[in-house]
């Protein structure tokens, strides 16, 4: 199996603070990889390394190697990297513009002008994010009028419109109700046919429901990384076992 990202001996500091400690593992292609672990252990931080969003934090300092396919992410232009590695945030953050313009935002920024092309892409992306049926009559309405769950699927559609290879999701359902959460989980199950998905969650049930691989983080270290089934069935590390059986965190 191919790996999309390979993380080798990564240490990350925010100023003096040592947030990731000697992290190494690979993210397999077209699989769902989940990051679990107590909050503050560096899951989001590692996720943001994959599309270089940490570049925006001046105090952030990364050591070690993160490869996207065969190139180091540091050598890839961040704009190019971010068009290939999309991101969905914890809080749904559609722009205060129409639903259509939200989805068309990324492609337009890349210089897409043809109206028909954009239109097809928007419809296609909304369909893939299983939002189209709900919004097809009001594409011109402001996206802020949608419900939380719809907004998050819109953010996924916006991401898909970039035709990325990887979608990073940072606790995408933590701000949503159970029904909206379920819809997103179903969506992830469909999307993994086409995309590599890395999802941060601190809901272990969610990780076991939707992911193929799981990385367990604690205090900046990756304690265990393996297929989700084996991690949850027979964890090799005592700490992992404690965490997933609820004796910790």
């Amino acid at each position, binding site marked *: 199996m191919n790996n999309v990202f390979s993380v080798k001996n990564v240490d990350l500091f925010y100023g003096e603070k040592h947030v990731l400690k000697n992290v190494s593992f690979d993210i397999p292609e077209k699989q769902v990889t989940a990051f679990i672990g107590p909050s503050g252990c560096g899951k989001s931080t590692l996720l943001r390394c994959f599309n270089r969003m940490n570049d925006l934090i001046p105090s952030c300092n990364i050591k070690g190697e993160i490869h996207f396919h065969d190139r180091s992410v540091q050598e890839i232009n961040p*704009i190019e990297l971010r068009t290939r590695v999309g991101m969905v*945030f914890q809080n749904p*953050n559609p722009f205060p513009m129409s639903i259509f313009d939200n989805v068309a935002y990324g492609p337009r920024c890349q210089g897409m002008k043809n109206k028909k092309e954009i239109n097809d892409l928007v419809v296609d992306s909304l369909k893939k994010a299983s939002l189209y049926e709900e919004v097809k009559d009001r594409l011109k309405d402001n996206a802020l009028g949608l419900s939380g769950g719809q907004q998050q699927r819109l953010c996924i559609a916006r991401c898909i419109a970039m035709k990325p290879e990887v979608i990073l999701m940072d606790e995408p359902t933590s701000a949503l109700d159970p029904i909206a959460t379920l819809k997103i989980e179903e969506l992830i199950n469909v999307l993994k046919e086409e995309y590599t998905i890395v999802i941060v969650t601190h809901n272990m049930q969610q990780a076991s429901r939707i992911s193929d691989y799981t990385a367990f983080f604690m205090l900046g270290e990756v304690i265990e990384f393996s297929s989700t089934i084996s991690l949850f069935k027979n964890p090799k590390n005592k700490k992992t076992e404690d965490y997933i059986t609820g004796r910790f965190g």
Partner: protein
Amino acid sequence: MRKTKDLLSNIFTYLFSSFGIIILFSILIFIFRNGLSSLSWKLITSDYYETTYTLKTAGKEEGTFTCPTLTADEYFSYRYGVVLKDSTNLVGEEVVEITYIAEDSPFLSLINTSSEEIVSLECGFNISKIVMSNDIGDYIYALGRGGASNMASTMDTSNIITDMVASEGGGGIRGSLISTLYLILLTLIISLPIGVLAAIYLNEYAPKKRFIEIIRGMIDMVAGIPSIIFGLVGAIIFIPFCNNTIGSSGGSIASGALTMSLILLPTIIKTTEEALKVIPKGYRDASLALGASKTQTINKVILPNAIPGILTAVLLSIGRIIGESAALIYAVGVAIKDTIKINEKSTTLAVHIWSLMSGENPNIATSCAISIIILLVVFTLNVIVKLISKKLNKMEVK
């Protein structure tokens, strides 16, 4: 013990606040009582300088007209068939006003002494001087400030008008209003792009360093400098600059706009920066994560969301320009004008008041009328700003 203390402090609070409110209302009442009667569409649309005619009658007038019903302060001239009344013109001088002209009165067919054209006077004309001759050929005269009664009776002893100065209109603020609008427009054209760009730089690009903090502090300090000092800067730098570049001499609207821009830049920068700061971080992150460049993020997401804030800055600026006087006395000038040019001296509304009050006949009525206009505009602008910031706050909560 504590109760009496509380009571005392309460009493003082109420006393002082009611004192403040009473003063505020007295000022408003004073202005409205003095100005409301002068405030009219005519005041706003007419020129400051009246149109004056020098006129004479075509020949001897021998007839007698029948007197219409008069009110207490009106006087009838039997010889010329006009009713006269004491009045003050819009500039505040005492004049005699024509309030009625009989059907075949010679006043309907006077001759312009310079162009020899026939002029027909109307009610509302003011007479400031009238020279006539009588049966035996002596010249007699009456002045506007001598009163309507005297003028009417003197006129009835004559039979030819040889030289009459009559005028209409005047005292209006059209010119100063236009000059104010030009000043607002020009100032915004200069200061808005600079201010908004500076705010964008400070908020989006500038490194979070000491140096930038010092600049911020300086911007705050500039906002507190009394405007007369900016007026001085304008006089020393901008007036010569405009003299050399656009051929003004002394002050001009252009040098006023440069001066006002200097005054307003801190406000514009700060207001815009506030607006940029409240834009949710999620928008920036989302845009950058979608592969947008920083410039695209600013143009497509940040700026559109900062528009309410920028609008607030514009409205605050307009209010400030309308209310400013000290800085503009040098920069724009104090000479009231009817024809407004950007590279010439004129007055803004606020300085118009200054000019009206500093002459020989301080014109309180018109000054108060202009004050009402200024107050209403500034008040409306402030209400709109409040509404916008209320809406902004709501957005922030979201």
